[in-house]
């Protein structure tokens, strides 16, 4: 299913974000494996992951399952601390790493409040790219495509008719660590 279209000439720049529905997620890890497969993520590493948080005391328990990844922050500290410009904002505000410019100094990893980055065995900082190679072709990121419960939606936050905008208007949502002040673009329906 395709929810995004590539930017046409003269059209405004999209502002890509993701909406994750914690009420639908069953923690099956399909998003994790889809990502590993799509992006050839080396074994033992992960660009996305499942967190399940249980609150309360037995038998009064409440559980939230989240599929987490890079938040593609609008004010991304990983971009501002990068000494070489390897970490940068790509089209649509997707935060990307140019492997060839990265020295592996790990300042971005220290700066990321979400601990979303890791060092690829080849020596550069790596993380979720919102599958920008797919997004360029008008496809959704691999994780959103395979999710069997449709808990993941991707799209342009500035387009009021996009699926993500409509979900955010209609449902209560939160971001993780808003106190970090980085303006994350990964929203969680609660």
């Amino acid at each position, binding site marked *: 299913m395709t929810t995004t279209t590539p930017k046409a000439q003269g059209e405004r720049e999209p502002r890509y974000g993701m909406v994750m529905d914690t009420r639908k997620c069953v923690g099956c890890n399909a998003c994790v494996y889809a990502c590993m497969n799509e992006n050839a993520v080396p074994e033992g590493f992960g660009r996305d992951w499942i*967190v399940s948080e249980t609150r309360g005391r037995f038998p009064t328990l409440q559980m939230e399952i989240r599929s987490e990844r890079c938040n593609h922050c609008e004010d991304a500290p990983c971009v501002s601390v990068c000494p070489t410009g390897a970490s940068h904002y790509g089209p649509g505000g997707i935060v990307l790493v140019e492997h060839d*410019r990265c020295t592996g100094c790990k300042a971005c*990893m220290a700066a990321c409040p979400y601990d979303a980055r890791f*060092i690829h065995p080849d020596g550069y900082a790596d993380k979720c790219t919102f599958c920008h190679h797919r997004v360029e072709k008008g496809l959704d990121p691999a994780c959103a495509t395979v999710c069997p419960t449709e808990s993941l939606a991707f799209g342009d936050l500035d387009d009021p008719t996009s699926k993500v905008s409509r979900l955010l208007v209609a449902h209560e949502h939160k971001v993780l660590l808003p106190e970090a002040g980085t303006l994350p673009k990964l929203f969680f329906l609660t």
Partner: protein
Amino acid sequence: MNTAIFDSSVEILHGRSNPMIDPHMHIWGWEIPVYLFLGGLVAGMMVLVPLLELRTGQRSRGLQHSPLLAAVLLSLGMFALLLDLEYPTHLYRFYSTFQPTSPMSWGSWLLMLVYPALIAAWLGGLSDDTRGRLPAAARSLFTLADRFRGPVLWATLALGVGLGTYTGLLLGTMAARVQWNTAVLPALFLTSGLSTGAALLMLLPAEAERKALLVRWDSLAIVVELGLLLTMLLGFATGGAASRVAADALLSGQMAPWFWSFVVVAGLLVPLGLNQVELRRHLPMTLAAPLLVLLGGLALRVILVSAGQDISLASLH
């Protein structure tokens, strides 16, 4: 999968297990604290050597090679930095760009200015004996060095302040790491650099008058550093929930014994006391105070770099 139980009412099952990140961050080992220590030490020397000469109005025979020593120590620190890089052959990437929002980018370029300043400070500071032993061709170089001695000293001093400050900015500007995220850190690292720089110069064969000045300045730096540490702890203890975790780490946590024994007592209070006794009783200086100050300066960086990685904003939820 990592299971972390923070209190009896919340259990988080985390599916991520990335190397260097989980269960808690450990991206920077011994290399970074050693670099921060040596960088601060060199920064202190770059401030104090010019100050001594401006104050006494004379080149120091005993300290004439100290700028060269500073350059060697800085190179050792930069070698440690190189060892930390995951992609060391991309080192040149630091110098193919300038990123104004990145303290590390400022630091990389600053280091390139520090070396010429140290070499110029060294050449202009060589004693007449040493100059006499060098080939005649070097004479014109000394004429030039003498002519610009003032500007070179002031430039070295300013670059020293920049270097010491940047080592603190590097960690202090990261909101994600509460233990580092304090505006006091640049001043703290600069002051600690001044104190360790003075300690190293005290180990060199400086003239008695200069040695006494160094002991005084070292004591002053130690007092200011104690004040800054207190300010940092007060800031953490009164700065809200996340900051309080950072305060607890140093006041009662795992790092507390190391922090209080190595940094505060052995690294600051004891050498301060020794300095005072030596000054008042006019005793010959021992190696104890400067060595303790150097140990304390290294311990401060090791403890803060490590503690900063133990606590992340995410781990507080």
